[in-house]
């Protein structure tokens, strides 16, 4: 059952390369998305049997992130049907620089999307550090061609940076795996084996491994100052890919750090990891707060907001078990809203044909639904009640205050406020104002998925379903459970 979650998308990905009909491709994409979400939902009801000798299992953190992948993929698949239909075939004019460019073949795009789903699923479910590495590197490789869908030199540049920076970053995590092996010679590299023997692990090697994991997977997660690939890749890829990168992929890399923090805690060295997470978290928030100000490109703005929220996640885990609960809840909220915002940004982009925030005016009038969602997204992402992110950001603030980390709390609030001001100026300017053109009719496939995601975010702010709350609690508990 667990294996089918990985193998079915992978097999569909292979099949997609052979399919010529674009209608069939879009149906395949949605069908796999539907299959994936049904099986993931089933895993919440009945925990599936571990596979491959316990290397693949749906534990609490894995299941949370897997569900996010699943929900966002289905949203992106439905959105993709309308998106791909609207993409003209053949050569066309690049609206930024006037050069001619064409799209990559649709079969390749859909195939890579499905591989991307398979590899992210594998990353979420693997409880073996070696296997996790293999899956995470595979997510980079399967998503790189997605960024280069519009074949012009800017997306090529973004793809190259993404490939190289993330591959090098992840290579460091591989070195971290070796350090982990040196910490406990002869021990198996799966989570359960390491947790059971945590007291025997050599502390110096283990700390070295955590540092390398933090730098390696942190690069892919977008923690500053290792985030440099992120704004380029997010702004140049098609919007549904940006939504998946930001909402699903970044979490998967975070999972790698969480898993090792769990081992570190079991070895009685939780504080070492937590201090580093607080530093990297605040740094990411600070960098994002600076770059969001006056950001002219609205997709880049969303990308920097992702850097900020990854900082919030790292910071939350650094602030103890209450903070870790907040961080996991925030991961859920952030994924849902950020994916929604990227999808809406795609709608705005395809009507206005510009990524410059200054040239988009009156979105509320021209795109009534997308404009409204754009505004709602601003409120949701900046943590305004009644949206879910308010709750999670508040929990993290409270954790900082309860720990007596007043300075951390102050910086946290300042950065949040700075990002809010920076984003609000841009977003309000785009949504309001007079528009010189007539209202645009929006297709349901491109408004329905973001609307559903917005509703989810609102619901999460009002009520957290009991199974989710339990899984979040379990995660927060196991990640920081002290031993030894």
């Amino acid at each position: 059952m667990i294996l089918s979650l990985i193998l079915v998308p992978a097999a569909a990905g292979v099949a997609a390369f052979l399919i010529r009909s674009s209608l069939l491709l879009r149906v395949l994409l949605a069908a796999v998305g539907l299959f994936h979400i049904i099986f993931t939902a089933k895993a919440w009801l009945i925990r599936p049997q571990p596979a491959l000798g316990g290397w693949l299992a749906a534990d609490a953190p894995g299941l949370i992130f897997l569900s996010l992948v699943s929900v966002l993929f289905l949203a992106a698949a439905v959105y993709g049907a309308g998106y791909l239909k609207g993409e003209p075939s053949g050569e066309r004019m690049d609206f930024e620089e006037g050069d001619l460019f064409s799209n990559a073949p649709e079969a390749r795009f859909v195939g890579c999307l499905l591989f991307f789903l398979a590899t992210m699923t594998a990353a979420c479910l693997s409880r073996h550090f070696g296997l996790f590495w293999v899956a995470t590197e595979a997510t980079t490789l399967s998503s790189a061609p997605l960024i280069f869908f519009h074949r012009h030199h800017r997306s090529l540049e973004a793809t190259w940076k993404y490939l190289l920076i993330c591959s090098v970053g992840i290579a460091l995590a591989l070195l971290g795996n070796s350090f982990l092996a040196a910490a406990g010679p002869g021990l198996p590299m799966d989570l359960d084996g390491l947790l059971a023997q945590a007291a025997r692990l050599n502390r110096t090697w283990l700390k070295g491994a955590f540092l390398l994991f933090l730098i390696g997977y942190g690069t892919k997660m977008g923690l500053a100052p290792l985030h440099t690939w992120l704004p380029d890749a997010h702004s140049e890829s098609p919007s549904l890919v940006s939504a998946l990168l930001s909402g699903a992929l970044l979490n998967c890399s975070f999972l790698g750090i969480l898993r090792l923090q769990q081992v570190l805690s079991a070895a009685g060295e939780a504080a070492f990891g937590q201090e580093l997470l607080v530093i990297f978290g605040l740094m990411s928030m600070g960098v994002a707060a600076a770059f969001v100000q006056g950001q002219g490109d609205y997709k880049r703005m969303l990308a920097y907001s992702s850097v900020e929220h990854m900082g919030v996640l790292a910071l939350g885990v650094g602030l103890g078990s209450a903070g870790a609960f907040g961080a996991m809840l925030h991961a859920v909220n952030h994924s849902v809203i950020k994916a929604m915002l990227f999808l809406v940004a795609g709608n705005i982009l395809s009507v206005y044909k510009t990524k410059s925030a200054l040239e988009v005016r009156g979105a509320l009038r021209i795109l009534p639904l997308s404009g409204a969602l754009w505004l709602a997204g601003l409120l949701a992402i900046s943590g305004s009640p009644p949206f879910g992110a308010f709750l999670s950001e508040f929990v993290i603030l409270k954790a900082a205050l309860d720990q007596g980390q007043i300075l951390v709390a102050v910086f946290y609030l300042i950065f949040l406020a700075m990002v809010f001001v920076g984003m609000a100026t841009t977003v309000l300017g785009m949504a309001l104002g007079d528009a010189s053109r007539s209202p645009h009719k929006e297709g349901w496939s491109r408004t329905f998925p973001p609307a559903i995601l917005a509703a989810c975010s609102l619901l999460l702010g009002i009520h957290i379903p009991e199974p989710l709350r339990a899984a979040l609690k379990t995660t927060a508990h196991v990640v920081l459970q002290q031993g030894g």
Partner: protein
Amino acid sequence: MSSWIELAVLFLILSNFALLGASRVTTLIQVAAGQGILLGLLPLLAHAKQGNLRLIAVALIAGLLKGVIFPVMLGRALREANIRREVEPFVGYSLSLILGVFALACSFWIASRLPATALFLSRKALPAAFSTILTGFFMIVARRKALTQVLGYLVLENGIYLFSISLGQKIPFAVELGVLLDVFVAVFVMGIAMFHINREFDHLDVGQLSALKD
């Protein structure tokens, strides 16, 4: 037997300097290929008596990939894309070599600071591993061509591979193959990207990739 290993380690360190000082891309590819073959042989030399089938299989696949397949792929890219053969460094060759000496010293220092652990090869392999990793990094940062960046990535992977075999890490066979497959696909995808960079800009100079910034 340990003299074999020490000889191999010495060759690796020398090859790192060759990578830093070489001015022609073909030389770089050949040196990286030599490193790959050496790394493939190393576990076989160290464990020749035990004749562990799994170990031999992994060593052969790794040696084949790093020593033959990657160099052939990159060599083809070099010919087909009609890339100029000079390395065109951001940082000059002599400065690169001086930095290489510095990196080697750092590697010895890091290796001496690491606590003892069960080692498969001699402890002398650790500084060589770190120096190879640092050389790879340096090639990615300080060389102008996309192709030399990919070579840098390969050298970095070589260093990590050396580190992992010198620990004699008990990696399950499937994971080891997965890692090698990932590296293979990475080079393949980077190769495709290079092809497009070459077509878009008429040459493989990553200095041209500078449109995206804040």
